[in-house]
């Protein structure tokens, strides 16, 4: 079931918005502060210019400094935004030589003023003022008396300039965001185009086309493309397996059926009841073989198609192995072999598998060993615990199989290169399929000097691992 969870575009867009928002906030704060600062700098410079112009107008007459306030200085002070303007020219004792100042300048400021100048903010009944003061050394022929030039104006100009500077950076930023958004959209389109190509390619594939994808994909999509190719390969493999299985199954069923036909024809041609009986006996034997073959095919198919997952009860592996071994030892088929139980662990090993499937797999392994080994061979079952796994092995001292055939032993109708025997070639395939369903692994190995060992690795039930682990470790030592 595919559920739609958001959209890539929306997610990218969301991140863009968040990033731009956070970044934008920081930028806006910075822009606000810097535009305030720029406006303050520009207008402070005008204040300084006005103060200097007034300072220039100080002259000495009859031994006292006098000032003729230049009109231009006031125009500089007022700025383009028609701020209210204030000035005061004081001597060092605070006496005004000239002023239109509405309030008293704090005495502390007057005392602190030196040649370097001073800028201050002052709140008055007329609103906030920005002041600048300059101490001017002026000298007459008889006396020297420094004068202080104080100038100030209201803040309209600063505010207007700061606002316009800020608005300019704001509009630049908004334009940038819009441009980024458009570019982001285009980029996303371009970036997602390989995905679209891939989608189109997959959609246009025919149902039975399992060839690997041939597409140019970016690095990020390589894994997806590889996974898809892997899936296609497995599907192709599965399909080929199915075809071969069907072909092989038909072939395998055809041979005994042809035999049955021949035997029954021979019997019908004769008029001797003894021969009929003989033929019937052979037909019966053949039918038994065939039905066994059919049964195996059926169980293999069933195993391959069983799918449901249900919680299984944990069962004791040791008990099951013992039970199966006893069952097989009593059978006629085992009469000519030495079937025995090897080492079994002291404590129970719990596995969560279907008992019938394990029994089937185990039976097939034993049957296999009996069938492909000469008479008198030993077939032994071993069970041990190794870590989280149960190691169940069936060992025989028969001829073994060619090393090249070991890898394909698990596939149907492979008989380890031994087409001479009467087996169907399905036993190990059933084991393999069963094992895979149980989450187990099957391992084939030749033994030295001779013989074959088939190992079934079964995962131990999870809740049993912790309990038995310590005991097992102790037992192994």
């Amino acid at each position: 079931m595919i559920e739609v969870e958001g959209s890539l575009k929306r997610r990218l867009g969301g991140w863009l918005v968040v990033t731009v928002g956070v970044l934008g906030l920081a930028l806006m704060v910075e822009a606000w502060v810097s535009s305030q600062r720029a406006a303050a700098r520009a207008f402070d410079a005008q204040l300084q210019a006005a103060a200097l112009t007034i300072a220039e107008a100080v002259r000495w007459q009859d031994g006292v400094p006098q000032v003729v306030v230049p009109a231009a200085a006031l125009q500089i002070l007022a700025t383009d935004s028609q701020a209210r303007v204030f000035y005061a020219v004081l001597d060092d004792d605070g006496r005004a030589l000239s002023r239109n100042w509405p309030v008293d300048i704090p005495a502390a400021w007057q005392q602190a003023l030196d040649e370097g100048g001073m800028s201050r903010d002052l709140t008055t009944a007329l609103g906030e003022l920005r002041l600048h003061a300059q101490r001017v050394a002026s000298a007459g022929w008889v006396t020297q008396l420094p004068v202080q030039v104080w100038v100030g104006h209201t803040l309209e100009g600063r505010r207007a300039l700061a606002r316009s500077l800020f608005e300019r950076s704001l509009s630049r930023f908004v334009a940038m965001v819009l441009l980024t958004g458009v570019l982001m959209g285009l980029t996303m389109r371009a970036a997602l185009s390989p995905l679209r190509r891939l989608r189109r390619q997959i959609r246009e594939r025919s149902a039975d086309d399992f060839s690997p994808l041939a597409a140019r994909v970016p690095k990020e999509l390589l894994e997806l493309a590889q996974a898809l190719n892997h899936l296609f390969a497995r599907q192709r493999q599965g399909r080929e397996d199915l075809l071969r299985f069907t072909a092989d199954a038909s072939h395998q069923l055809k041979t005994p059926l042809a035999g049955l036909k021949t035997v029954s024809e021979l019997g019908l041609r004769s008029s001797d009841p003894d021969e009929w009986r003989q033929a019937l006996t052979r037909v019966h034997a053949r039918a038994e073989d065939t039905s066994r073959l059919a049964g195996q095919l059926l169980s293999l198919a069933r195993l391959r198609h069983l799918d449901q997952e249900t919680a299984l009860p944990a069962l004791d592996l040791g008990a099951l192995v013992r039970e199966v071994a006893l069952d097989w030892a009593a059978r006629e088929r085992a009469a000519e072999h030495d079937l025995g139980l090897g080492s079994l662990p002291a404590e129970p090993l719990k596995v969560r598998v279907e008992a019938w499937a394990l029994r089937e797999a185990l039976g097939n392994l034993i049957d296999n060993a009996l069938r492909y080994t000469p008479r008198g061979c030993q077939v032994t079952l071993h069970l041990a615990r190794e870590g989280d796994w149960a190691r169940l092995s069936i060992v025989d001292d028969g001829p073994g199989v060619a090393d090249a055939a070991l890898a394909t032993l698990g596939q149907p109708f492979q008989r380890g290169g031994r087409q001479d025997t009467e087996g169907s070639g399905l036993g190990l395939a059933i084991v393999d399929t069963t094992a895979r369903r149980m989450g187990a692994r099957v391992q084939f190995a030749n033994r030295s000097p001779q013989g074959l060992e088939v190992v079934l690795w079964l995962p131990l039930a999870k809740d049993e691992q912790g309990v038995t682990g310590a005991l097992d470790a102790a037992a192994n030592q």
Partner: protein
Amino acid sequence: MTLQSGQRFRPFRCLSARCSVPATRRRLLGRVVSQWLPLSLLMLLVVLLGGCHSEDTSVPTDDDPLVISAALDLDVVAPLLDAFRQAYPQIPLRFEDRTTREVDDSVVGHLEGGQATGEGASRAPDVVISSAMPWQMARVNEGLARRLGGPEIERWPEWARWRDEVFAFTFEPVVMAYRLDLSRHMLPPQTHGDLHALLATQARWLSGKVTTYSPLSSGVGYTLAQQDARYSSRFWELVGAMGRADTRLETTTRAMLEGLSQGRYWLGYNLLGSYAMVYAQEHPEVIVQVPRDYSLVLMRMAFVHRDAPHVEAAETFVKFLLSQRGQRVLAGQTPLFSVLPGVTGPYTAARLRTQVGERLYPILPNATLLAFVDPARREAFTDHWRARFQGEPALDEAVERSSGALAPE
């Protein structure tokens, strides 16, 4: 510029105004209005409603009218007041015609505990109008004006307003005037240079016959002298020449015009053109000459007082003054010249420019005017002026230099 009884000065087209405007200064002008019953009922309603809201923005009543403290002849401005009354009959209005100094005192009188003259001392005027531009600017700079807003304000030319608090609403050229007889003896002056030459060459004829504004005792005269000095440092030579010609100093344009008319004076310098042009129409013996080199232009300024008792009515008045309608009356029925673009009439700044040319130099409402009211600067300037007038050589070059800062030479 007060209107004194017994004066013969009659601005033209004032007849219709005179029948409804009482000539006495302190009579309640809104009396005519109260004769109308429905309107008085309406006013009563407005008063009652206003009383419900707040006291400080109360509407004006007959007992407590809208007060306009103005240095502007009532005769001249009467058509405008009539138009206002017609548009807002519910606002009773008292127009107090004063000298520029009295106007300036009235602006701050209420702050100083009623020491100023006149009955309006205990309260601030609602609207202040004056031609003493530097003093108006200083009061506005001190925060005594109220900032206005609205379509009339936004349409008003930027160069004729300051901070949206004070508005220069007239455009009055500063002119020379002479008696017709003068041209029989000499070529009448057309420029400042002509005047200077005439004073030098015809000193015998002109001695005691020249008049000008006193920069010592008239705010307008002082402003004009300051501005003249800023444009040309040769102004001081003219001052010296006027002093040698025993020039008589007057404090009003009307006094100068009447002197010319009566033959006491032959030549007048720096008269307000608004009054002179109208006067000359009725007195053919007086010729008005707009100087051909440059002509200063004085702009009367109006503002709503910060402490106006009737804020809304005061704003209504100023906005009416600046509106198309008010300016049309100004351009058509007063010689004050409208600066509002698009207004037509015989008296508009645009028409004056086409008639006189581009040699009009208006004194604009900006911060430079504030320097003129600086006491130290004023004292230095008047001292220097007096010295030059009395024939002393240039004692104080700094004054000439600083006041000539804008000299084009």
